[in-house]
């Protein structure tokens, strides 16, 4: 086989391999959507973030408007500080309510934004005051069991 034919086949092979990588990055990993557009950063403090992860989606009305960029622990307030990068196309009032939700019963956790009625909008670096922590299933169940037990013991006392 001549050298030119080998060059042609190797070139074809490398192009095909790179195309496959590009397909994986853009179509499967959605890299284009992840890095597109200007963003601004806001912060929120939570008592408990549950299983929230960096790069989890930030949604408003079910639409992805940003991503979680950093999660750290604040040793002064003993709370979790979550930094979010929001798309500059979407502006939210200062009294926006930030919650940690779960998609489905056992799905991944994401941040939900419920817009308030303030006329001032959130700016880059702002800290959101109104937050609601993640629901921890174990806590919820133990609370339910405790209430149930208290109810039962109260009931038998009346008898």
């Amino acid at each position, binding site marked *: 086989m001549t*050298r030119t034919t*080998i*060059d042609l*086949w*190797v070139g*074809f*092979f*490398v192009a*095909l*391999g*790179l195309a*496959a*990588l590009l*397909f*994986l*990055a853009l*179509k*499967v*990993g*959605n*890299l284009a*959507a*992840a890095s597109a557009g200007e963003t601004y950063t806001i912060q929120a403090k939570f008592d408990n973030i549950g299983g929230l*992860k960096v*790069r989890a*989606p930030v949604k408003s009305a079910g639409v992805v408007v940003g991503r979680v960029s950093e999660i750290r622990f604040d040793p002064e307030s003993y709370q979790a500080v979550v930094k979010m990068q929001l798309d500059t196309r979407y502006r939210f009032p200062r009294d926006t309510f930030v919650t940690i939700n779960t998609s*489905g019963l056992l799905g*991944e956790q994401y941040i939900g934004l419920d817009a308030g009625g303030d006329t001032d909008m959130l700016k880059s670096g702002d800290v959101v005051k109104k937050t609601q922590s993640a629901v921890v299933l174990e806590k919820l169940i133990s609370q339910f069991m405790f209430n149930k037990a208290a109810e039962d013991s109260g009931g038998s006392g009346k008898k």
Partner: protein
Amino acid sequence: MVSRFLQTLGNMVTKRIFRLGFAARFFVAIFLQSGTAFRRLNLTLREIYFSGVLSLIIILVSGLFVGMVLGLQGYDTLQRYGSTEALGILVALSLVRELGPVVAALLFASRAGSAITAEIGLMKATEQLSAMEMMAVNPIARVVAPRFWGGVVSMPLLAALFSAMGILGGYLVGVQLIGVDEGSFWSQMQASVDFQKDILNGVIKSFVFGIIVSWVAVFEGYDADPTAEGVSRATTRTVVTSSLAILAADFILTAFMFTGA
């Protein structure tokens, strides 16, 4: 009786350790002699052709079928929990993180690794390597290094092609044949597959597997007994050793890459 057994065992272990030392020295020698492989690029291109381009068919067809099987099995399991829309995530993550790099590397070891060992082993048996040394041509620079780098370059590209074909296979079975919602299939996949954590780590894995397979293949060929039987045994050893090394390395790499937060 016992002392003879212990002596045999000791000899075997010592021989293995000597061989491991020689393999490590050989690995360093390949790197030191790699200048020729890069200066005379046509040598490396020829090896990319033999180990990469000629392995394309087996990689593409296997990738398609593995993806199709994943689509079928994934659908069967997911429908019990009423979450067939998660089929895209299941197919993509299985392929990009594990099956793509690992199965492509196992196929590469069987198809290209064995061929490299047989070629170098035959060169040794027919004293072509000695003839090169007589002519002051370093066989590691002229024969081994281009084959090594040809394998290292080919492997990540083949693994990417395997994963891409597998995802297409999963799409064909899941969406076109069974009728999973196309929008859910792609959007769930895109929401869950992370470029850096999943795709890039998969590429790093396949690069490491490329080094392992190519190293084992060229070493076994170079170290083969210069007889027909010796070459055949070296070829078998290449497939066995590199397959086991791939699986062990996969465990270690997975432990590093995908555990923790």
